[in-house]
């Protein structure tokens, strides 16, 4: 028993050191964001800040109009994408999970099969298409592809949830005089709240992080989202000091990190569900 306890202590220290190293990049970005410019650009660099300041955060919200624009773009695109995916996948999930129709299985296999296709294969045609019809540099130009890329995940999760509901519930509701659509909206969708939450998390995390489509389709700076715009500012503005970049990074990830720590089981389960299946 003593041996086992000693072994656990060693393992604990090993894992603990690794965990500290793992936290370091985020902690370091945070420390960068609360330092003064002189402190940051002094050689040699120091681990511990000499003077703390919130000046970087004030600056990015008051002096940099572009940054607020990115926040707005990211919020609009992410929230719209999530809402459309939720509604569409709840509708499709019901059709595939509780209805029977010809070609059902093949159709479902095709829709879910696209999950294995690398995103780069969509990018060029979508770029050309959006260029021709003028969807580039609009919110919808990002929302539509994001919905399409997340819908198969949502559909997979929602079909699974709907197919566990006993058909009796549906039939009882229809005998009571509900139309099919009323029954779906008032009875079936509320039952599937956990699956909707998982779909929300997968889609939200995707849309909040996405870089390749956003950087390609949004060719004008004022339409870019946070992950793209911050990189653009870092590359284009020679005068931009690292403290401000750090502040922008922290503002982008902190709300999500807080949500993650509060709803950690939800996040881990939801995200894992989305990434495993298929």
């Amino acid at each position, binding site marked *: 028993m003593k041996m086992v306890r000693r*072994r*656990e202590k060693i393992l*604990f220290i*090993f*894992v603990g050191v690794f965990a500290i190293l*793992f*936290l370091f*990049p*985020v902690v*370091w*970005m945070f420390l960068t964001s609360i330092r003064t410019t002189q402190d*940051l650009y002094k050689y040699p*660099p120091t681990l511990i800040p000499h003077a703390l300041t919130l000046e970087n955060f004030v600056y990015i919200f008051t002096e940099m109009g572009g940054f607020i624009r990115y926040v707005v773009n990211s919020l609009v695109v992410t929230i719209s994408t999530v809402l459309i995916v939720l*509604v569409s996948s709840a*509708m*499709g999930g019901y*059709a595939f999970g509780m209805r029977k*129709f010809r070609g059902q299985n093949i159709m479902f296999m*095709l829709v879910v099969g*696209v999950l*294995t*296709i*690398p995103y*780069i*294969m*969509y*990018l*060029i*045609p979508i*770029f*050309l*298409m959006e260029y021709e019809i003028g969807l580039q540099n609009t919110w919808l130009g990002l929302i539509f*592809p994001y*919905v*399409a*890329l997340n*819908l*198969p995940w949502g559909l997979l999760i929602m079909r699974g949830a709907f197919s566990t509901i006993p058909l009796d519930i549906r*039939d009882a509701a*229809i005998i009571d005089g509900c139309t*099919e659509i009323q029954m*779906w909206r008032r009875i079936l969708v509320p039952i599937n709240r956990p699956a909707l939450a998982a779909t929300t998390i997968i889609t939200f*995390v995707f849309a*909040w*992080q*996405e*870089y390749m489509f956003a950087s*390609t389709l949004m060719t004008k700076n004022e339409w870019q989202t946070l*992950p793209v715009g911050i*990189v653009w500012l870092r590359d284009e503005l020679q005068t931009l000091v690292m403290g401000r*970049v750090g502040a922008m*990074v922290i503002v*982008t*990830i902190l709300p*999500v*990190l807080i949500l*993650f720590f509060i709803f950690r089981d939800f996040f*881990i389960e939801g995200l894992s569900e989305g*990434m*495993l299946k298929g």
Partner: protein
Amino acid sequence: MKQLTKNSLRDRLNLAFFLFPTMLFVVIFIAFPVIFSGYLSLTEFNYASDPAPKFIGIKGYIDMVRNDIFFHTALYNQMRFAVAYFLIAFAVSLVLAIFVNELQRGVQVFQVIFYMPMIVPMSLVGITFAWILSPDLGIFNHMLRLLGLGHITHDWYGEPSTALNSLVLARTWKMIGFTLIIFLAGLQGISKSLKESARVDGANFFQEIVFIVLPNLKPYMLIGGIWILINSLKVFVLPQVITQGGPGSATLTLYLYSWKLAFERLHMGEASQVAYLTAFIILFFTWILNLIFKPETAQKG
């Protein structure tokens, strides 16, 4: 039930209503693009000079595979990246999962810490690592100097010899949490009594891992392995944000080359060829991994 008469018009309309949004998005933004880029890959299509694609069949593919030096470089870099990333990500998440699983306390906390980078946007991971590993003001080189290891400091992303491996490091940090969770789930399914009986028989920790834990973990290793493998071949954001494929073309990956062909040179045909070839490579390796790790259900008993 009688109420849902199968073929009434109303019933069909309802079904169409429920399927409509899915079909709309999938057809326009998924099916059409995949087919269209397949067609583009069989054409010569310079979007800047000539707005109409010219059909050339598989000649483009042959030219690409045989003669395109940048494609060869990108393929080579991609394979080097994939091997390094696969080995490191697989080994680290497996070892960490086994260790975390042995702990009595703190399992939840460690799980959250290791999973946390999964929700940091990849491009911001790029900015963060570029800053930490920057040559003069970067804290990593500074720590090395403090530890008396000044001679191994590098311009990590600026030198061809270290750039690719430094990208592997950043990606491992970002992605490892997911496989850790998969492996932990598998480990928790291995019964305590199985391990205890091995311990009673005199097995040490190492033997216990090799003979009890790893064989039982095989299906989870397959899932985790496939996931790491697929991710090891889709590398775009980090080289784009940190190195732009440089220095020289030391970090030019297949995804990045396809993107540069399409959106810097507007050679849409060639770019689609690279995209399709990448997809074939991914499918091929997934198939290989499936063969290696096929769960041997018949072997037991």
